[in-house]
């Protein structure tokens, strides 16, 4: 085969990646050249969110388990990378009660971010195995309880997180190029994982746990691997996010944020990378518009009170509408492929099976 043919074959085989990466990179370059600071900022934020949501997709989309803990890993990554990257002076100023051993630590930002991910993965690895054994309601509630435990620790552990107060003073490392590279790498990783043997076995366990067990899939094991891997990427993304936003408090890693991440994942379709990508894009844009509307309403003086919570309200409605209209998300459980309209003729393999029921 000649080289051009090889390339075109490769493009066909990897058309999903091409369809996602080309616009992502192209828009990134265009904005870098012509964008206003505000737009650059929004796009950077979008890329960082993309990392976090794809990490969520790796576990939740492939396993079908509602991953309440995800935002906790993001938080652990954010705090850990911040503690590792900040200068001792800044730390002792920002977090007066910090353990002296922690104050002295300092690494360059990039290794700090990666290590932050490792810390999150270690925590997830330490507690994950028993959690992955639980299924259905008990599993959902236990993961939820785990998020709350992590949150309580974050708000109470003064010597590490500055308690409920703001943790500030991080370097502004993440700009568009860094975030773009991060997003590209995570897309590649999530795509590889989804198509890998591990990912396939996990998806099999999602569609039918008992059938998967019957063909020799160790359900707990494949879930566990995904859980830890997802935590690693979430932790790294948390570090990237932390060095973009530069100051935060434990509130950023709790239920409101979880809801936002879930809307991003679910609206597009949790079963596929394309779905997670599309959902993140839609929600990012919708949120910016809603924010403008909200502040416009408040500034106009039309209302005697502060309009607050409109964004979440609309997001909640949007999410329910999408779930009713397309329970597997706008894109669904299959990746988009080239040519766009010729989707493979097989049942939508998004999470969960539709039960046939008469009206």
């Amino acid at each position, binding site marked *: 085969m000649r080289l051009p043919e090889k390339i075109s074959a490769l493009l066909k085989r990897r058309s999903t990646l091409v369809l996602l990466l080309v616009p992502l990179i192209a828009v990134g370059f265009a904005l870098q050249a012509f964008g206003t600071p505000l737009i650059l900022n929004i796009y950077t934020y979008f890329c960082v969110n993309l990392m976090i949501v794809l990490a969520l997709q790796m576990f939740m989309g492939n396993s079908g388990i509602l991953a309440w803990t995800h935002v906790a890993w993001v938080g652990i990554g954010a705090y850990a990378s911040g503690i590792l990257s900040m200068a001792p002076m800044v730390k002792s100023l920002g977090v007066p009660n910090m353990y002296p051993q922690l104050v002295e630590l300092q690494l360059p930002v990039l290794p700090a971010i990666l290590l932050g991910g490792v810390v999150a993965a270690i925590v997830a690895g330490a507690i994950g195995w028993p959690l992955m054994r639980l299924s259905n309601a008990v599993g959902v509630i236990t993961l939820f309880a785990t998020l709350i435990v992590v949150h309580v620790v974050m708000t109470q552990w003064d010597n590490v997180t500055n308690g409920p107060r703001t943790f500030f003073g991080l370097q502004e490392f993440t700009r568009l190029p860094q975030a773009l590279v991060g997003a590209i790498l995570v897309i590649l990783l999530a795509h590889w994982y989804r198509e890998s043997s591990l990912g396939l076995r996990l998806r099999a366990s999602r569609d039918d746990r008992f059938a998967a067990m019957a063909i020799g899939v160790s359900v707990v094991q494949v879930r566990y691997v995904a859980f830890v891997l997802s935590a690693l990427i979430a932790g790294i993304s948390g570090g990237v996010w932390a060095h973009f936003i530069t100051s935060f408090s434990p509130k950023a890693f709790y239920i409101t944020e979880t809801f936002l991440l879930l809307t991003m994942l679910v609206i597009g379709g949790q079963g596929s990378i394309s779905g997670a990508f599309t959902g993140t894009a839609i929600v990012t844009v919708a949120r910016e518009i809603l924010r403008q509307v909200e502040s416009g309403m408040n500034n106009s003086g039309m209302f005697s009170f502060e309009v607050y919570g409109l964004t979440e309200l609309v997001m909640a409605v949007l999410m329910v509408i999408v779930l009713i209209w397309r329970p597997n998300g706008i894109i669904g459980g299959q990746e988009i492929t080239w040519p766009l309209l010729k989707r493979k003729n*097989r*049942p939508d393999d998004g999470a969960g099976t*539709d039960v*046939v*029921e*008469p*009206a």
Partner: protein
Amino acid sequence: MLKVQDLYASYGAITALHGVSLEIAEGEIVALLGVNGAGKSTTLKSITGVLRPVKGSITFLGEEIANRSPESTVKKGISLVPEGRDIFGSLTVEENLRLGAYANYERARYKTDLEEMFQLFPILKERFHQAGGLLSGGEQQMLAIARALMSRPKLLMLDEPSLGLSPAMTDQIFDLISGLHQRGTTILLVEQNAERALEIVDRAYLLATGSLEFSGTPDELKRKVDIASVYLGGDDNDHCEVHL
């Protein structure tokens, strides 16, 4: 009474029925036979409305009932004794029967219907206040049939009533089914025990991989189709117990 025409049904992408047609006249007892996966249960599910057919029509007493909900078909007079009996294990026998009467409940005749069930199944009177889950397999089957009868069905459908029962209990259940038929109940019987079923039915349909293979009287069926070979590829026993 019941007329199924060109019925297609599927589970997701897998089509389970490819154009099945069958008919049952009032007072008839008809068997629906076929190996595992032939589409017997799917046919019953489509008739009861548990499964929405892709295509085709189901008329009952002249009324289209395809796409109706399960709760409305039972009100119309079609009652199903589900495969595996499916009695409510945590409910007492009394409560199981009360729910059976739910669809067409009339206070005045409820007591007499109950008495009738006690006559048909004396064991249920003894076990009246026990949890259904504590009954033996045969007793559960009787409860399932009694529960279905409590709605005073015009058409009674039984999905493999002898499944998992001892030979003696199987005999008892079959005697009972033909007794019910003699009392005038129209019956559609899905059975794994083809030989036994053919002894008591007027007509039979044979399903294979989602379409009708044969229909006719038991004699015709026995003449034209080697039943043993259809099921198992041959069984020389006199009483061919076939398994699905």
